[in-house]
């Protein structure tokens, strides 16, 4: 929103090198400051700080259980309802701490959309799935809703496949179509950030490819954070990559650099498949 922080240097607490994450002096969209996350006594995230610039794609990689999903869910406060969850530190979006008491979680989530690992359309029609976000905001203008539904479906590159069947049950779509529907559903409320937690891990390679292309397109309008298990995917789609290991941020920087010439042996070992 404002660009007070454009001059700020990227914060990378665990990393000695300070990669150039902010080449064009774009403002930071998302900032994590000294984040610790606990599930009861178990510490899932250990003092992570990292900044993400606007309209970029950032990939979180790392072995299962290293805390990628936990970290991602901090940005739309989806951890809040988990038993035993508590945290230290700040998450800033547009320079505002989203864990501040004045923040309404519902409002936050209209700005920060999320796509899940397993496609999870509602058991309703395609149309109603996409319209849902607007309906719960109290939008009554049906023409407005219809335009937004179509716009979102087009943006998610699904419209041409289903344009005559908007009333069809969403669960009858293929897995890849369902996932693009879920993306359209998230886009329909016009967020500025999109969080994706392994969005293609349940899909076949062709469907995954379509979603990767789509993610590339969406970068123009959204700040995207994607968790992925798939190294090639991270390398293909992201601008920056963060490698997490056992709750620590091991390395964070330019994707090209992480994959060709990482600073840390641990990163090197992971991306070359020697562990994880």
């Amino acid at each position: 929103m404002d660009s007070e922080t454009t001059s700020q240097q990227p914060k990378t607490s665990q990393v000695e090198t300070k990669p150039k994450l902010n080449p064009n002096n774009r403002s930071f969209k998302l900032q994590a400051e000294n984040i610790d996350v606990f599930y009861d006594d178990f510490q899932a995230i250990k003092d992570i700080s990292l900044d993400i610039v606007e309209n970029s794609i950032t990939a979180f990689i790392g072995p299962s259980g290293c805390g990628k999903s936990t970290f991602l869910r901090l940005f739309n406060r989806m951890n809040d309802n988990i038993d035993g969850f508590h945290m230290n530190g700040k998450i800033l979006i547009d320079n505002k701490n989203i864990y501040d008491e004045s923040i309404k979680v519902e409002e936050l989530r209209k700005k920060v959309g999320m796509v899940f690992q397993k496609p999870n359309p509602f058991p309703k029609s395609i149309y109603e799935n996409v319209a849902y976000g607007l309906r719960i905001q109290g939008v009554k203008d049906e023409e407005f809703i219809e335009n937004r539904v179509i716009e979102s479906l087009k943006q998610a590159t699904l419209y041409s496949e289903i344009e005559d069947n908007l009333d069809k049950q969403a669960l009858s779509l293929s897995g890849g179509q369902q996932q693009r529907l879920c993306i359209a559903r998230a886009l329909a409320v016009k967020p500025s950030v999109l969080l994706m937690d392994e969005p293609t891990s349940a899909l076949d390679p062709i469907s995954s490819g379509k979603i990767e292309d789509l993610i590339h397109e969406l970068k123009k309008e959204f700040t995207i954070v994607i968790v992925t298990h798939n190294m090639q995917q991270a390398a293909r789609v992201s601008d920056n990559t963060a490698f997490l290991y056992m709750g620590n941020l091991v390395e964070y920087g330019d994707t090209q650099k992480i994959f060709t010439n990482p600073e840390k042996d641990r990163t090197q070992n992971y991306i070359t498949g020697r562990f994880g």
Partner: protein
Amino acid sequence: MNNAKFNRLKDKAFKYTGIIASISGIVVLAIFIGFVIYMGVQRLSWDFIVQLPSRFAEESGIYTAWMGTVWIMVFTTLISFPLGVGAGIYLEEYAPENRWSKFLEINISNLASVPSIIYGLLGLGVFVRMMQMGNSILAGALTLSLLILPIIIVSTREAIKAVPSSIRDASNALGASKWQTIWHQILPASFGGILTGVILALSRAIGETAPLIVVGALVYVPFAPQNPLDEFTVLPVQIYNWVSRPQEEFIINAAAAIIVLLGITFIMNGIAVYLRNKWQSKMEW
């Protein structure tokens, strides 16, 4: 005999024990129903349904009894449905997880197995005497509502639990409030299960005799009830009354009334099964 052979023998023994157990249950039920139909079907007629009770078996009908049953069931539904479903939603979605809610949970399950006569005594003490409702339909319906509330609460919770958490996540992630998620996603997805539970609970209530006798359902009511504070009788009480008469004719009347009561119960169960199937096929994840 080696081990495998012995196991196969055990397998067979268990299979046949199972078959015999199920068949004997079904056979006994079939004999009972057959006997009742054999005895009662001759007495079934339009007159039997629309006539008032009488001292003479041949002129006696079940009009006041089934009207009473309808009144009681309507009020029981009006009371127990919102209360039971509301409590189920509260316990499943809102109640904090602590020792108190655990205690409540265990006790609700226990309440479902308390003998119905106890509920009758409670109804007599609280609704009939303390709240001075008298031997009215309202007192009877409140008593039956207490009786079936635990069943409705438990089945509502089960139905809500069966909704996949991914649906809840999807709705929350779009900025829905807790209530919006419940209202727009959780309830529609669990409604088949909830309705099934409610109907099965009601079809239990419709056959209850003991608690209604305790709260004062009368054995002889000359007029159909006009309002919820009227006195009443219900089909099971009428049946109970008739079978305790020595005359053969009244026993036949009882058999005919049992056919009507069974018919109503079967229809209710049929509706429950139909709704469950309909919602299940709509809600394939």
